[in-house]
């Protein structure tokens, strides 16, 4: 008889482990309650958790809602705030006023019409973002993306969260163990016991004996204990494309508890990398991601302190090494990696947590019924993940290749030898036609859709040729979407509260479920 897949064992108690546990347990709740399926999470009592990124994607709203988590609780327990995208400052020319938004709302009428050529033909002295979406203006004014009367997880303007990753993992843990029936085992994994075909049959732990399972999910972080160490799957570096290899982070207090809180991530380019600046209700998380081949730690720290100003006095930065890249394969035999164990890229577009969600969802939705069909699902999973990592690397690189900055780090980044072929081809194509639906972003769950490319390309001054007369047929439609956008911008600016004010209200009154 072919062995059915009933017992899932997750190793690692960080964000990836608990999110994966929650997504899988929520999807298979019916079987868990019947006692025919189990999710066990093994967490080392000794390994410290690396809180990956404090920026998330709007997908997290659906992920948490499906798990049955209350959004009000998320705000109250994870120091969460709203995120409506990112502003990239000084990436193009380095000038003081150089900057653009990558918002989370799609351009108006995106499914009906590509507004890019219309904007290119007549910019009206306005940025692409402002012509096609209200979200840049909302960010400029520090407004929240919804109101206190908007139900949990629903948006007026699309949004994600900034949150304290150190609080997020224990928060999800509590939900998983109290509500979703996830077994939590505190133990150190010593070795993986293997069958003849290479499958993992069980894990030997120091404190909890042997733990058997049918599918093992490796969420052990950079160490990749199961997929990397036990299964011997190699790591594919991508530092030939993305040069940053170090991050230096600080937690910076606000001037006063009432200081405005940005509702977007502020990403500012510096001489050899960039800083993230993420506003949580209680503090700002700020970090410099840089290439140690281009700048010394001392000089980087000085640049970071210059960016923060006097608020950095007396604070000590935490240095975090970054190894850009991913596993050569993600699911081997009955072992699959999620989170840092699968790979890591600089947090320029907050791709870490969204990748965890997407992987966990794919595992949960495609949960192989038995060992006999597992390899088919694994092959599919690997195919999708190779595609995703490749596209994310392309998209991150896109932010660098269009720069006109002159520092060596930036010039090296524009060296064609460092640009993946696929991206090179697309950039060539996009000189003559702007990206839209018919570009090859064709996956159901595309991490960065064509709209994201539009925001970055045209935010950075990329030029696409528009043939005279080409817009004539769709001009009326385009004009109507653009004026709709103006009206919507006016309306939302008048009606939305300040980001900090809404977060405070959520702490005080909570959001309604409907």
């Amino acid at each position: 008889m072919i062995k059915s897949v009933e017992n899932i064992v997750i190793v690692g108690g960080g964000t990836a482990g608990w999110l994966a546990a929650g997504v899988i347990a929520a999807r298979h709740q019916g079987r868990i309650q019947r006692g025919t399926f189990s999710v066990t999470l093994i967490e080392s009592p000794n390994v410290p958790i690396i809180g990956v990124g404090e920026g998330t994607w709007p997908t997290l709203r659906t992920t948490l809602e499906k798990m049955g988590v209350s959004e009000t609780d998320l705000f109250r327990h994870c120091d969460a705030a709203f995120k409506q995208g990112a502003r990239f400052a000084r990436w193009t020319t380095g000038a003081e006023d150089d900057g653009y938004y990558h918002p989370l709302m799609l351009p108006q009428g995106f499914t009906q019409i590509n507004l890019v050529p219309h904007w290119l033909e007549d910019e009206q002295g306005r940025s692409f973002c402002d012509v096609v979406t209200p979200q840049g203006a909302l960010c400029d004014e520090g407004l929240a993306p919804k109101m206190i009367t908007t139900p949990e997880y629903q948006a007026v303007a699309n949004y994600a969260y900034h949150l304290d990753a150190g609080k997020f993992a224990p928060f999800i843990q509590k939900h998983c163990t109290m509500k979703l029936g996830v077994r939590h085992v505190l133990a150190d994994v010593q070795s993986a016991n293997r069958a003849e075909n290479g499958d993992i049959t069980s894990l030997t732990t120091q404190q909890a004996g042997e733990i058997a399972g049918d599918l093992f999910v490796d969420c052990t972080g950079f160490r990749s204990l199961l997929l990397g160490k036990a299964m011997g799957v190699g790591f594919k570096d991508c530092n030939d494309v993305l040069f940053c290899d170090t991050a230096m982070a600080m937690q910076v207090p606000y001037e006063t508890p009432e200081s405005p809180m940005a509702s977007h991530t502020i990403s500012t380019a510096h001489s050899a990398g960039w800083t993230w600046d993420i506003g949580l209700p209680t503090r700002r998380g700020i970090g410099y991601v840089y290439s140690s081949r281009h700048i010394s730690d001392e000089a980087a720290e000085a640049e970071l302190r210059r960016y923060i100003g006097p608020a950095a006095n007396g604070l000590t930065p935490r240095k975090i090494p970054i190894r850009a890249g991913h596993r050569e394969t993600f699911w081997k035999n009955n072992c699959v990696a999620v989170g840092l164990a699968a790979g890591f890229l600089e947090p320029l577009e907050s791709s870490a947590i969204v990748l965890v969600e997407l992987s966990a969802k794919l595992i949960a939705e495609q949960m192989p019924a038995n060992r006999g069909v597992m390899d088919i699902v694994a092959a599919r999973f690997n195919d999708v993940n190779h595609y995703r990592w490749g596209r994310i690397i392309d998209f991150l690189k896109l932010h660098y290749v269009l720069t006109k900055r002159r520092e060596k780090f930036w010039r090296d980044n524009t060296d064609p030898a460092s640009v993946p072929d696929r991206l090179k081809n697309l950039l060539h194509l996009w000189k003559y036609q702007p990206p839209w639906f018919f570009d090859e972003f064709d996956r159901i769950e595309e991490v960065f859709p064509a709209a994201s490319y539009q925001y970055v390309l045209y935010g950075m001054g990329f030029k696409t040729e528009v043939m005279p007369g080409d817009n004539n047929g769709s001009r009326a439609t385009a004009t109507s979407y653009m004026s709709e956008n103006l009206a919507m911008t006016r309306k939302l600016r008048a009606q939305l509260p300040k980001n900090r004010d809404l977060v405070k209200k959520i702490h005080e009154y909570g959001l309604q479920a409907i």
Partner: protein
Amino acid sequence: MANIAILNNTLHRSVRVQAGASARYGDNQRFVPVIIGEFPHLAAHYPILLTKDQNTGAFFAGAVLGFDENENLFLNERGMETYRPLNLQRGPFYTAGNEVAIDLDSPRIDSSGKPLFTEAGEPTQYLQSIMALFRDLKPGLEMTKSFVETLSSLKLIEPIDIDLAFDDGSKRKLTGLYTVNQEALRILPDATIIDLFRKGYLQLIYLMIASLKQVPVLAHRKNNALLKSSALLAGR
């Protein structure tokens, strides 16, 4: 701007108040907050629905009296012929702790109105009726809050969209209103239903459901008003 003072039989001995229902005095409200004690009176005339407090997002109960801003379809020159909700009856009065307070800037303060105190400084029958009203209204607000919170925690609240088309060709769309989710009510566990019954909540729930029948009645009233005004415009 309100100018609210604790009522005092010396300072306010000569104050007189217009008590009747009139648009001039603020009875022209399309949605009036209500308490559960009023539900039996309300359900006979008005839809009892929930909406969200703009400041806190919390649900509260109210009676729908009209569709447009400042429209109370039950108000005419003679006042309100149907049950007048306590929140309208209370006029310019408020409570502050155990005291009755009054908004001295209210348009209801008028020398041709009803006196509050006798010559001897005793509360008049009118003021006594206001004091009695607050004895209902004040605890009623808390009880109503508990009732609504119970509906919310049992996930018994659902949005209701009211789309109306009138004979003069105009349309109205009411949003931000909520009612009881009857399907969610039907599948509640027996023990919960018994608990709701013992608290008196089940009856309130059914009054809310029954009051939905007042939506078309209200629409009919509105339709007549519209036709009357368009007939006037046409000079007929």
